[in-house]
């Protein structure tokens, strides 16, 4: 129904906000009267009566005497009989909701109020913060539209050779992790059909070590782990429902399709994680990444149940992942990492079973900087990629070995090998270069002038090789964060903006506690960076960030380096090359991991 609205700035000059609302109201079909600034309350009230309006909207930007001005207006409106007839609203930089309510306004809107919010007030309907595509947010597929065709024939030829060799090598190999993943799948299927999985569970327990072995032997949990009670889960469910009631969050990209913004959780406590995930969703994160404890990666086997862990990283169990998955809004992407450790095939299988949307696999990173034996992770990674293909889970191939000091070209060569294996298995890999200030950049002075060129060069290099999705991480700005939250949020936002400018599909961001090591990440720090990224993406929009000509030179050097590494790897073979330092040696900071060494079995012992 059409409303008649009077708009009046009670400031000497500031009326831009009201003009925007005036335009919005007219476009929404309402009739408006916009008064000039700085009229006395008597004239505003007189105009409201004369114009026979349904609603009066006032604005106030300047902070002095706000209470006096607004109180005087309400007094005069009441004396004139206007207060009882029309709806009164007030907004502007100087207005706080509590002040407006105290003064007797029907609605009071502070800084950040949108035109849509003001229109909803006039129309007397509830308002949910919906902007751009936020109202229709859907779950995007990062890999959509990519052909994975190579633009660099020599690199394609080398990868084909390497992967041919690898496929032959891996065909008759298995590991305890591969066997456990198959058993876990059977356990889930058996119990889903109402069967008894006791025997399968016993077999599974025999393939475990450490805390997992103890659990399957006598049901005990480590001292730092406990089962979360039903009461806690009930209260948490209530919190989640309450969070979701507030409607869809803002759109962090203001309608642009990319980059999607991911952020990682993993406080150790599933309850706190879910509490954080809900605020990440509220502040418009597109996806969340499950971060598991480091000891879990070095233990053969997973525990069971809804568990809390006193320490960094949230334990992977089918129940924990399912609980997280159930807590997410339908548009939120859920990634479970399987890029290192002794449980990668089962991790991907569980991710698929609980309805996660993405996973993370990289044989090179996990075995050169993640502590897992290369042979073991090569076998496990292969089977993890088979599960990823089976469940339709795209996976990023993270190159975090750069943080250890491995040069980008060596890390990228490894990433391309894993991605090529993934493609052979029918998977959809996503390339994940680091936007970071790693050792290579420091030693070679690649970022002495700016932080744009080398990061942009990585994307340029990969784009010149293959038509594949690119998702820098993880998180962007690694090694540039400090404990200063302003600096930390700023560097994250700038790196995300660079990602947007070079057209990547997604970015992973940290909280402003990234560089703080004195305690767990708090919720406010998570909001800091999301808010900063939103502002940076707003600021740059579709404007470009131009790298200097040096970026092209850097990109060419990376590509040349990749060709050399792959050429050498064809000579050694992929897995031997991992041990021999082809993809990064001790001088680079890469050390073949030892977890799981000697556990790979041949065909006669294979289950899967």
């Amino acid at each position, binding site marked *: 129904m059409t409303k008649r609205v009077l708009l009046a700035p009670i400031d000497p000059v500031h009326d831009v906000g009201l003009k925007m609302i005036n335009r919005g109201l007219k476009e929404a079909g309402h009739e408006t009267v916009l008064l000039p600034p700085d009229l006395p309350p008597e004239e505003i009230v007189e105009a409201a009566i004369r114009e026979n309006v349904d609603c009066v909207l006032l604005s106030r930007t300047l902070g002095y005497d706000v209470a006096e001005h607004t109180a005087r207006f309400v007094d005069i409106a009441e004396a004139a009989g206007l207060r009882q007839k029309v709806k009164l609203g007030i907004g502007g930089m100087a207005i706080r909701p509590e002040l407006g309510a105290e003064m007797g306004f029907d609605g009071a809107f502070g800084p950040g109020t949108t035109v849509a919010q003001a229109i909803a007030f006039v129309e007397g309907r509830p308002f949910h913060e919906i902007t751009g595509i936020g109202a229709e947010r859907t779950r995007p597929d990062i890999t959509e539209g990519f052909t994975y065709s190579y633009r660099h024939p020599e690199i394609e030829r080398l990868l084909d050779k390497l992967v041919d060799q690898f496929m032959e090598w891996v065909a008759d190999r298995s590991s305890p992790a591969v066997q456990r993943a198959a058993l876990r799948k059977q356990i889930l299927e058996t119990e889903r059909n109402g069967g008894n999985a006791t025997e399968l569970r016993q077999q599974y327990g025999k393939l475990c070590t450490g805390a997992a072995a103890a659990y399957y032997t006598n049901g005990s949990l480590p001292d*730092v782990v406990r089962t979360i009670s039903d009461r806690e889960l009930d*209260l948490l469910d209530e919190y989640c429902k309450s969070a979701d009631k507030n409607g869809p969050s803002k759109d962090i990209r203001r309608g642009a399709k990319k980059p999607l913004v991911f952020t990682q959780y993993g406080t150790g*406590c599933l*309850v*706190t994680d879910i509490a954080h995930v809900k605020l990440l969703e509220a502040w418009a994160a597109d996806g969340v990444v499950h971060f598991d404890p480091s000891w879990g990666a070095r233990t053969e086997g997973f525990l069971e149940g809804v568990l*809390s862990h006193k320490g960094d990283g949230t334990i992977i169990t089918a129940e924990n992942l399912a609980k997280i998955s159930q807590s997410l809004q339908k548009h939120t992407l859920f990634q479970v990492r399987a890029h290192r450790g002794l449980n990668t095939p089962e991790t991907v299988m569980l991710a698929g079973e609980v309805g996660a949307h993405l996973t993370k696999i990289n044989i090179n990173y996990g075995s050169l900087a993640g502590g897992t034996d290369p042979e073991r992770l090569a076998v496990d990674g292969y089977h993890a990629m088979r599960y990823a293909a089976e469940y339709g889970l795209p996976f990023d191939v993270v190159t975090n070995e750069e943080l250890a000091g491995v040069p980008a070209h060596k890390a990228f060569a490894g990433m391309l090998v894993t991605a090529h294996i993934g493609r052979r298995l029918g998977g959809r890999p996503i390339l994940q270069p680091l936007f970071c200030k790693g050792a290579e950049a420091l030693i070679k002075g690649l970022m002495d002038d700016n932080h744009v060129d080398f990061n942009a060069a990585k994307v340029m290099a990969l784009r010149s090789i293959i038509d594949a999705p690119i998702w820098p991480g993880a998180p962007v700005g690694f090694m540039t964060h400090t404990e200063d939250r302003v600096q930390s949020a700023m560097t994250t936002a700038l790196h995300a903006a660079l990602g947007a400018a070079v057209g990547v599909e997604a970015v992973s961001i940290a909280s402003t506690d990234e560089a703080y090591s004195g*305690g*767990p990440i708090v*919720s406010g720090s998570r909001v800091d960076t999301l808010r900063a990224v939103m502002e940076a993406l707003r600021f740059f929009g579709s404007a470009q960030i131009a790298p200097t000509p040096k970026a092209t030179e850097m990109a060419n050097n990376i590509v040349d380096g990749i060709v050399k590494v792959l050429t050498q790897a064809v000579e050694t073979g992929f897995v031997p090359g991992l041990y021999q330092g082809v993809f990064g040696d001790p001088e680079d900071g890469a050390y073949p991991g030892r977890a799981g060494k000697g556990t790979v079995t041949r065909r006669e012992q294979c289950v899967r």
Partner: protein
Amino acid sequence: MESTEKRQPLNALLDGLDIETFFMCRDEAEGRSLMLALLNQLGFSDVDIVFIEHRGPGARVRGRAYLHRPGASHPFGGQCA
């Protein structure tokens, strides 16, 4: 969840409370001491300095009190492991 009228502010905290301010102080060490003392005076025991930078007349400092540490407690009725 408790109604707003009944809730105590600290019961509504999800995890930690940060205080950020500027202390007039001689050096970083004094700034740290002042922030830790302030947090203790407010009744918090699990406290830390997240960030401090001393220049000129004093220090910009951010202190933190943890009300809940993951795995130890949370505001949904969880207790120590």
